């Protein structure tokens, strides 16, 4: 009788310990999955802001007469944002799957080796519309920016 009582208590303790371990294990798995989805969402948000809003900020900071132009290369379009009248410019272009930004003389060749990586994108296209509206398309979507300073009319 005594051994039966002891085995019942032992079995009971085993079940309780197993339930605790199972609950702890499920909690850890659920927490890890939640953290992974949150980290992925945060990365996606940061990528969208880098590929979209950063271009608009670059243009707004250098919105002067005729500052924003688009040139074409074998790799694709290049967004050239002149830095005032210094003769230097910010050039934004795609090489491979990366969107790059470099700073150099406006008429100098592109320097991908010394460029800063803005983000990863397989698509980079620029459309110019009427009244100074530019439409830039990347993997993260489309961004519009309006250039307020137009070229001065010929006298």
């Amino acid at each position: 009788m005594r051994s039966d009582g002891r085995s019942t208590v032992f079995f009971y303790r085993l079940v309780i310990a197993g339930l605790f371990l199972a609950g702890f294990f499920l909690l850890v798995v659920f927490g890890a999955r939640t953290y992974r989805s949150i980290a992925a969402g945060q990365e996606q948000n940061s990528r969208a802001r880098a590929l979209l809003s950063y271009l608009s900020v670059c243009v707004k900071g250098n919105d002067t007469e005729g500052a924003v132009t688009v040139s074409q290369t074998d790799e694709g379009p290049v967004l050239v944002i002149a830095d005032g009248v210094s003769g230097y410019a910010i050039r934004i272009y795609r090489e491979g799957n990366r969107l790059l930004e470099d700073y150099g003389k406006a008429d100098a060749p592109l320097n991908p080796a010394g460029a800063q990586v803005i983000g990863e994108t397989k698509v980079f296209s620029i459309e110019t519309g009427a009244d100074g509206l530019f439409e830039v398309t990347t993997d993260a979507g489309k961004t519009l920016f309006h250039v307020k300073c137009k070229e001065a009319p010929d006298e």
Partner: protein
Amino acid sequence: MSREGMRNRGKKQARPATAFYMETLMLAAVFVAVILVLVRIFALSGQMSGRAGILTCAVHLAENAAEAAAASENPETLKELLEENGNVRLQESGGECMLCAWYADDMSPAPEGDFRVDIRWASAESAGEGLPRSTITVYWEEEAVYTLEIACRQEVTS
């Protein structure tokens, strides 16, 4: 041993077992409460992460609408700039002009999308001496997520 002694001995054996079961039940109850609180926290954090993604998209859609409005002289021009796949509707009521543009979750133009960008166009005549102020409101599933007020400036030539 007397009968009373044997009875007392049985009670003493029963008390430790009863105490054990009670303590185990209390421990299990506390453990379940802790798990429920942590699961609630995890679910809440996931929900906030989803809201952050929606807000990021809403801010960007509002930025695009503001840039297009700055490049437009009238609501019809703004409609032409934003319209793609028939996702823009222009309606006038009571002297006010309202544009509604719909976008999908990936910010692509979609007439049946969950995002709706409402642009209340303010004409120069209504502004008087000041700058005309337009209001851009972004809705997600009919809930206002982000509101942006813009004042369109005149063309600048140097």
